[in-house]
C-alpha cells in the first residue's frame, strides 16, 4: 500500500485512517476474532513502519513531509501533518513496538477470554491516536489526538476487568490525564493566541511570546505533559494502571502513551524553554520524579510494579533531557527514547511471560526456572543491563551521552541523573535477582521450577527488541543518522555530534563507573537497604501518598457536592422561591439606592396619611403572623381598604371606589375557597428557619420600598412628555367623558380592556371547569339545594331580611355606577364589582341556590353575552370604515330628562359590566355550593384572576 501512495500528499492521512478503520472493524467483530484480532491489529502497525521507512531518505535530510488539510476554516484550524525526523523517530518507536506487542499478545492471550478482540481494536485505535499526536503540527489538532489517546487508554486499562481496582485505576488514569489534557488545551489556546500561530513549526519563530498570560499558558501546558508522563506529583495513576493486561502495559507504559508528554516537551522546548517557569519546573519535576520513582521501584516485590515505578523514574529522566531546551541534552533524550522503548518493552514482555507461565510475578514466589527458559532469562538480563546503563548496550550510550551533555552546563541535572542512575542500577539488579529466583522466600514452594517453558513465538518479540538493544549498542551508527536528524529537526541551528559507544575516557565515563559501582554495592546489600527503606517509610507514613491525596480529594469533592445538594436542592418550593426572591431583591438594590439623592418627605401635607399607614402596617404584620387562614385574608383585606383610604385622601374617589369593590369581592371569594383548606396554616417544621425568612422578607420589603421611591422620583429623568397630562387634556374633547379613569378604560386603552375581559372570561371558564372536575357530584345544577342548608353559615334571620332589602338597592346602585360612569365616579368595572358584592350578600343569606334564583340566566350566558356585546361594539366601527373601538357620541334633548348625552362607549361598558357579574356568578357556581363534599381545591384561579383586572383598573 504505501509504495503506491508515495508521492501523493495523503500518506499520513491514509495511515491514520487505516488505524481508525481497522480499529473500529476489530472492535465490531470482537468475539469472532478473539486473540487473532491482534494479528489484524499488526497490519496497520506494519504498514506504518514500512511507509515511514520509505519516507526516511528525504526526511532525514531535513526535508520534512508536510500534508495540509483544511478542517475548520472558520476557526483557522487546519490539519497540518508534519513528518520530520523527530516525528519519524517517534513513529518508528510507536509502530515498531506496536507490531511486536501485537505478535506478543497473540501468545499472551492464548486462553480464550471475552473482550480480547475488542482489546486489539482499541489498541489499534490508540496507536492511531498516538501517531496523530506525533505528526500533528497544529496545536489544536494535537490536542484532539491527545484526548483520543486518553479516552482509548481509559478503555484499554479498564477493559472488561471485573476487578474493582482496575476500574478505580482506569478512572484515576482518565481523570488525571484528562484533567491535565484540558489544562493543556487552555495553555495551547493562550500560547497560540499570544504567538499568533497554532503551528508548532512556526512557534519558535514567534517573537511575541512573553508576558503573564504566556507564563500561565506554559504552566498549563506543562501540567498537561506532566500528567500524561506520570511525573511527580501526578505519577500515582501509572502504577495503578498496571492492572491492565501486560501487553497493554508494555505498549502504553513503555513505548507510547507516557511518552506523549515527553514528546510534547521535546517539541515545545525549543520555543518555550526560555519562558519563566519552564526550565525550573521541568528540571525540578523531572529530577524529583527520577529519584522518587527509582526509590519506590526498589521497594517493590511485584516485578510489574517494579517496572512501573522504574518507568516513572525513567520518564523523569527523559523529561529533564528533552525539556531542558539545549540541543545536546535533547540529543541524549532522543537516544534514551529509543533505548528505553526497546528495553522497557522487552522487560514488560518478560514479566508477562513469567506471569503467564508461572502464574505469579511476585519475586517472593519465584525460585528460578527450569529448562527452556534460558532465552527468556537472557533477554530479561540483557534488557535490565541496558536499563542499568551497562556497556555495550544502547542504554549505556544514552546515559553516557546524557552525563556528557549535562556535565557541561547543567550541574543540577547532572546530580539528579547520577542519583537517579544509582537507583536505576539498584532496581535493575533487583529485577535480575528476581527473575533468576534469588529473592524467593526461604522455604517457599518452588512452583516456578515446574512452570512450562514459553513457546518460541511468545519470546520472539522480546528477543527482537534485545537484538536491537545489543546491535544499536555495538554499532550506534545504525541510529546515528536518525538521532542527529531528529535533533536538527528540533533545533535547526544545531550541529549535533555523532553517537559513539566509546567516547574515550572522560568525566561521563568516570561517573558511569562510579554509578555502576555504587549501584552494584546496593544490589549486593539489598537486604539492609530494604530494612532502611521500611524504617524510612515508617517515619513518613503520615504523609499522604499521591494515591491517597487523589482519592482523598475525590472524596472531599463528593462530600462537598452532597452537602451543597442537601442545602440548596431539598425540593422545598418555599426555599426555591426564597432564593429567587432574595436575589431579585438584592440585585437591583445597589443601583436603586445610589439613585436616591435625598429622601422625599415621607409624610406629606395630609396628616390623615399617618393613621392610614398605621392601619396598613398593622394589617400586613397581622396577616403575616395570623395562624388561621381566614384571619389572614381578612387582615389583607384591611390593608386593601386602607390603601383605598389613601386614594380618598389624595382626592381620587373613583380609584378608591374600585379598590373598595375589589377588596370586598376578593375577600368574599377568598373565604369561599379557603373553606376547603385546613383552618390553620400547617405548623410543621419549615424548610427554612424563621430568622432567615425574616431576613429575606426584610430585604424584599426594603427593596420594594426603595424601588417605589426611585420609580416615583424618576419621572423627571425621562425626556418624553407625561402621558397622564395628555390624557387629562384629551379626555373630554376626544373621549367625551369627564371621568378620566373610565375614558381610559373604555376608550384610550379600550383594546387593553377588551383583552382583559377576554382573559377574565377564559379564566372564569377554566376555574369552573377545574372546580367541577374536582367535585363531580356536588355540581349537578339540577340538584335542589335546601336553602342555606349547605352553606356552612348559620342562618340568621336578620341577615336574610337585610339581604332581601339590600340586594335590589345595591344592584340599582351598580346600575347607576354603570351609566354615570363616563362622567362621574363609576363605570362598568366598578358597577360590575358592586353588583358582585350584592350577589355575595345573597349568597351569605341563602347559599348558591339563592344566587341562582336572583339571576334567572345561567352565569355563562351572562358572561358570554357580555363578552359578545363588548367585542361587537368594538368591531362595529370597522363596518363604518372607522378604526376599531372608535366611539361616537350623541347628544339630544329629551322632554323629560333634559339633555341626554350618550356615547357608544356605554354599551361597551355594559359588556364589561356583564362580564364581571358573570364572573362572580361563575365563581359562586364553582366554589360556593355546599360543604358536605370534602373535595378540596388548592388552587384558586378564580379568585386570583378576579382581582387582577380590577387592580389594574385602579392603577391605570
Amino acid at each position, binding site marked *: 500500500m504505501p509504495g503506491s501512495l508515495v508521492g501523493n500528499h495523503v500518506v499520513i492521512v491514509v495511515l491514520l485512517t487505516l488505524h481508525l478503520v481497522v480499529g473500529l472493524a476489530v472492535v465490531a467483530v470482537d468475539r469472532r476474532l478473539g486473540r487473532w484480532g491482534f494479528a489484524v491489529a499488526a497490519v496497520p502497525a506494519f504498514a506504518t513502519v514500512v511507509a515511514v521507512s520509505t519516507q526516511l531518505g528525504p526526511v532525514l535530510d531535513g526535508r520534512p513531509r508536510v500534508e495540509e488539510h483544511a478542517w*475548520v*476554516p*472558520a*476557526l483557522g484550524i487546519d490539519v497540518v501533518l508534519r513528518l520530520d525526523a523527530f516525528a519519524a523517530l517517534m513513529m518508528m518507536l510507536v509502530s515498531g513496538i506496536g507490531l511486536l506487542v501485537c505478535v506478543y499478545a497473540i501468545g499472551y492471550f492464548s486462553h480464550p477470554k471475552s473482550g480480547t478482540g475488542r482489546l486489539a481494536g482499541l489498541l489499534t485505535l490508540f496507536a492511531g491516536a498516538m501517531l496523530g499526536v506525533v505528526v500533528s503540527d497544529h496545536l489544536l489538532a494535537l*490536542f*484532539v489526538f491527545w*484526548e*483520543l489517546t486518553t*479516552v482509548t487508554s481509559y478503555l484499554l486499562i*479498564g477493559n*472488561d476487568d*471485573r476487578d474493582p481496582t*482496575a476500574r478505580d485505576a482506569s478512572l484515576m488514569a482518565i*481523570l488525571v490525564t*484528562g*484533567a491535565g489534557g*484540558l*489544562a493543556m488545551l*487552555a495553555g495551547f*489556546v*493562550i500560547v497560540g*493566541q499570544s504567538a499568533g500561530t497554532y503551528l508548532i513549526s512556526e512557534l519558535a519563530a514567534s517573537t511575541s511570546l512573553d508576558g503573564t*498570560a504566556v507564563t500561565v499558558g506554559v504552566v498549563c501546558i506543562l501540567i498537561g505533559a506532566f500528567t500524561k508522563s506520570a511525573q511527580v506529583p501526578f505519577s500515582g495513576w501509572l502504577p495503578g494502571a498496571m492492572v491492565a493486561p501486560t501487553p497493554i502495559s508494555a505498549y502504553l507504559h513503555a513505548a507510547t502513551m507516557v511518552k506523549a508528554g515527553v514528546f510534547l516537551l521535546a517539541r515545545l522546548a525549543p520555543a518555550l524553554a526560555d519562558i519563566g517557569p519552564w526550565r525550573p519546573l521541568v528540571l525540578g519535576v523531572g529530577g524529583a520524579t527520577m529519584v522518587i520513582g527509582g526509590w519506590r521501584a526498589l521497594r517493590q516485590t511485584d516485578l510489574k510494579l517494579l517496572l512501573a515505578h522504574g518507568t516513572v523514574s525513567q520518564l523523569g529522566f527523559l523529561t529533564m533531557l528533552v525539556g531542558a531546551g539545549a540541543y545536546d541534552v535533547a540529543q541524549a533524550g532522543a537516544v534514551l527514547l529509543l533505548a528505553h522503548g526497546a528495553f522497557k518493552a522487552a522487560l514488560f514482555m518478560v514479566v508477562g511471560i513469567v506471569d503467564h507461565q508461572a502464574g505469579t510475578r511476585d519475586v517472593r514466589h519465584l525460585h528460578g526456572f527450569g529448562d527452556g527458559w534460558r532465552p527468556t532469562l537472557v533477554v530479561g538480563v540483557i534488557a535490565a543491563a541496558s536499563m542499568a546503563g551497562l556497556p555495550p548496550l544502547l542504554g549505556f550510550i544514552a546515559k553516557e551521552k546524557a552525563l556528557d551533555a549535562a556535565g557541561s552546563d547543567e550541574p543540577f541535572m547532572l546530580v539528579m541523573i547520577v542519583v537517579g542512575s544509582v537507583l536505576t542500577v539498584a532496581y535493575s539488579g533487583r529485577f535480575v535477582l528476581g527473575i533468576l529466583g534469588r529473592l524467593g522466600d526461604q522455604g517457599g514452594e518452588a512452583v516456578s521450577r515446574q512452570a512450562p517453558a514459553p513457546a518460541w513465538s511468545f519470546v520472539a518479540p522480546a528477543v527482537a527488541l534485545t537484538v536491537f538493544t545489543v546491535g544499536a549498542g555495538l554499532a550506534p551508527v545504525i541510529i546515528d543518522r536518525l538521532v542527529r536528524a531528529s535533533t536538527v529537526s528540533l533545533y535547526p541551528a544545531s550541529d549535533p555530534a555523532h553517537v559513539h559507544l566509546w567516547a574515550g575516557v572522560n568525566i561521563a565515563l568516570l561517573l558511569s563507573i562510579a554509578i555502576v559501582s555504587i549501584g552494584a554495592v546496593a544490589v549486593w546489600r539489598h537486604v539492609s537497604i530494604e530494612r532502611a527503606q521500611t524504617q524510612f517509610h515508617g517515619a513518613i507514613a503520615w504523609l499522604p501518598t499521591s494515591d491517597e491525596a487523589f482519592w482523598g480529594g475525590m472524596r472531599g*469533592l*463528593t462530600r*462537598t*457536592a*452532597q452537602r*451543597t445538594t442537601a442545602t*440548596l*436542592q431539598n425540593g422545598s*418550593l418555599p*426555599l*426555591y*422561591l426564597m*432564593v*429567587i426572591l432574595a*436575589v*431579585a431583591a438584592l*440585585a*437591583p438594590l445597589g*443601583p436603586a439606592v*445610589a*439613585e436616591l439623592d435625598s429622601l422625599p418627605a415621607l409624610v406629606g401635607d395630609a396628616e390623615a396619611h399617618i393613621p392610614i399607614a398605621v392601619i396598613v402596617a398593622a394589617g400586613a404584620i397581622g396577616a403575616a403572623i395570623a395562624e388561621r387562614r381566614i384571619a389572614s385574608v381578612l387582615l389583607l383585606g384591611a390593608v386593601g381598604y386602607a390603601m383605598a383610604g389613601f386614594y380618598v385622601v389624595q382626592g381620587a374617589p373613583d380609584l378608591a371606589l374600585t379598590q373598595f369593590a375589589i377588596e370586598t369581592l376578593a375577600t368574599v371569594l377568598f373565604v369561599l375557597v379557603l373553606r376547603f383548606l385546613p383552618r390553620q396554616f400547617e405548623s410543621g417544621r419549615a424548610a427554612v428557619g424563621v430568622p432567615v425568612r425574616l431576613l429575606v422578607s426584610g430585604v424584599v420589603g426594603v427593596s420594594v420600598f426603595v424601588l417605589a421611591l*426611585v420609580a416615583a422620583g*424618576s419621572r423627571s*429623568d*425621562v*425626556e418624553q412628555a407625561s402621558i397622564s397630562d395628555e390624557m387629562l387634556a*384629551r379626555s373630554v374633547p*376626544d*373621549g367625551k367623558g369627564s371621568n378620566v379613569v373610565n375614558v381610559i378604560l373604555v*376608550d*384610550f386603552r*379600550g383594546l387593553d380592556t377588551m383583552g382583559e375581559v377576554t382573559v377574565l372570561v377564559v379564566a372564569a371558564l377554566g376555574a369552573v371547569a377545574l372546580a367541577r372536575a374536582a367535585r363531580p357530584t356536588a355540581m349537578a345544577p339540577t340538584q335542589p339545594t335546601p336553602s342555606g342548608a349547605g352553606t356552612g353559615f348559620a342562618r340568621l334571620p336578620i341577615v336574610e331580611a337585610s339581604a332581601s332589602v339590600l340586594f335590589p338597592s345595591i344592584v340599582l346602585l351598580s346600575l347607576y355606577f354603570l351609566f354615570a360612569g363616563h362622567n362621574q365616579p363609576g363605570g362598568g368595572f366598578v358597577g360590575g364589582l358592586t353588583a358582585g358584592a350584592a350577589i355575595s350578600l345573597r349568597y351569605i343569606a341563602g347559599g348558591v341556590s339563592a344566587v341562582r334564583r336572583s339571576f334567572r340566566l345561567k352565569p355563562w350566558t351572562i358572561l358570554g353575552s357580555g363578552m359578545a356585546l363588548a367585542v361587537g361594539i368594538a368591531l362595529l*366601527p370597522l363596518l363604518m370604515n*372607522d*378604526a*376599531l373601538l*372608535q366611539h361616537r357620541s350623541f347628544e339630544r334633548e329629551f322632554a323629560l330628562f333634559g339633555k341626554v348625552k350618550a356615547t357608544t362607549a356605554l354599551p361597551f361598558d355594559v359588556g364589561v359590566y356583564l362580564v364581571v357579574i358573570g364572573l362572580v356568578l361563575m365563581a359562586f357556581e364553582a366554589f360556593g355550593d355546599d360543604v358536605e363534599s370534602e373535595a378540596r381545591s388548592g388552587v384558586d384561579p378564580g379568585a386570583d384572576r378576579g382581582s387582577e383586572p380590577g387592580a389594574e383598573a385602579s392603577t391605570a
Partner: protein
Amino acid sequence: MIASLLAQSAWVAPTIDWHALAPEIVLAVGINLVLLIDLWLAESKKWIMATLSGFVMLAAFVPVVTLAVVGDDVRSMFDGRYVVDQYSLILKALFLLAGYVVVLLSQTELEEGGYYQGEYYVLLLASILGIVMMTSSRDLVSIFVALELLSIPAYMMAAWRKRDRKSNEAGVKYYLLGVFATGVLLFGMSYLYGTTGSTKLTDIGAALGGDLLALQVIGIVFVIAGFGFKVSAVPFHTWAPDTYEGAPLPVTAFLSVASKAAGFVALISLLYLALYPAKDVYQPLIWVLAALTMTVGNVLALRQTNLVRMLAYSSVSQGGFILMPLAVMATGDAAEAALKTVVIYLLIYAFSNLGAFGVVIAVSRKTRSGSIESFGGLMSYAPGLAILMTLFLVSLTGIPPFGIWIAKLQAFKTLLDAGSNAAYVLAVIAAVNTVIAAAYYMKVLREMWMKPVPDGDITPIVAPQPVAAALGICAAGTVVLGILPGLVLRFADLQDLNGAFGR
C-alpha cells in the same frame, strides 16, 4: 382617541411577507389541524397524531430551507419588529429539528404509557411555534408573547403523567416559579419601555446609549433575571432538577434543550440589539450567573445517583458555559465570537443532550429505572446504545472530536479574545468545571463499559423505531458537527443578526 392617534401616524396596514412567515403559518395551521383531527379520532388510531405532528414539523422546515436558498437578504416586517434573517433561520431549523426529534422520542412513550396523545402534540407544536417565533422577535412584546406561548404548554406537558405525584410536582413547581419569573421579567420590561419610550429592541438600544438611569439598570437586571429562569441559570435553576426528574422523559428532553435554547435566543436578541450599550450592567451580572451556574450545576451533578437528575444538573452547568461568552461580549472585540459561540453551542448541545435523553428513554423501557446503576453492563447486552451514549457523553464532556468540544473551545477563545482579567478568571473557573464535569460523565461510562449487569438480565434492548431514528439524527449531528464544525460556523456572523449595533 385611538382613532385620532392612528390618524396622526397615518395608519397603513403592514405589508406581510408571506414567504418569511411561512414556517410560523404552517405550524399554526398544523396545530389547528392536529387539534381538530384529534377530536374525531378513535382512541385506537391516536398513533396518527405523532406522525401527523412530525409531518407538521417537517412541513414547517420546508419554507425555512427555501428561505435560506432564496437568498440572504433580510426580511423585516412590522417596522423591524419581526425579522427573518440568517441568524433566525438557522435557529428555526434547529428548533424544528429538535421538535421533530422530541416527537419521535415521545411516540412510543405516550402510546405505552397511556397518556393523552392529541393534546400533547398540540401543546408541543404550540410550544415549538413559540420558540420559532422567538428567533425572529425583535420587540419586547413579541418576545414576551413568544415566551409565554412556549412556556405555558410546557407547564402542562411537565405534568403529563397525571397519576404520578412526581410529575404533578414537576408541573406545579415549574409553573409557580415560571410565573414568578415572568412577573420579574415583565416588571423589568415595563421599566425599559417606560424609560426608553419604545418596545422595539433597536430603539431601546439607541436610547440606552448615554448614562443609564437607575430605573434602566433595574429594568435590565430584572429582564436578565427573568431569562435566567428560562435558561435555568443559578440561582434561578431550582425548578429544573425537580421538574426534569418528574416530567415524562421526552418532555424533559424538550425542556432541557428547546425551551432552554429559546431562552438563550431571546437573551441574545435582547443583549445584542437592545441592551448592548449597557455593558457595565449586564456583563458583571452575567459573569456571576455564568460562574455560579457552571459551578453549582456541576457540584450538584456529581452526587446524583439518578441519571435523569444528573443530566438535569449537567444541563444546568452546560447553560453556564453557554452564558460564559455573553459575560464578555462587549469587552474587546469579542462580540462576534461570543455570538457565534452561543449559537454553535446551542446547536451541538441540542443534538448531544437530546441524544443522551434518547438513550435513557430506550434503556429505561427495559430497566424501568432511571438510576445510573441500571446502566451497568449496558455494553454487554446493548452495545449499540452503549456506544451511542458514550458518544453523547463524551461530546457533552467536551472531548474531541465529538460535538461540543468545538463549542467549548470557541467559548474559551472568546474569553481570551476579550482579554480582560474578568475573562481570564472566568476561563479558569470554566476549565476547572470542565474537569469536574468529566468526572460524572465518566462515571456513567464506567458503569456501562465496566460494571456487571445489576440484575443479570441481558436480554438485548430493541429500541423502538422512532427512538432509533431520533438517536440516529442526534448521533449524526453530534459526530458531523464535531468533525466538520465548519458546516454551521458560517452561520451566525454578526451581520446575520440584523440590527446589531444599529446596523
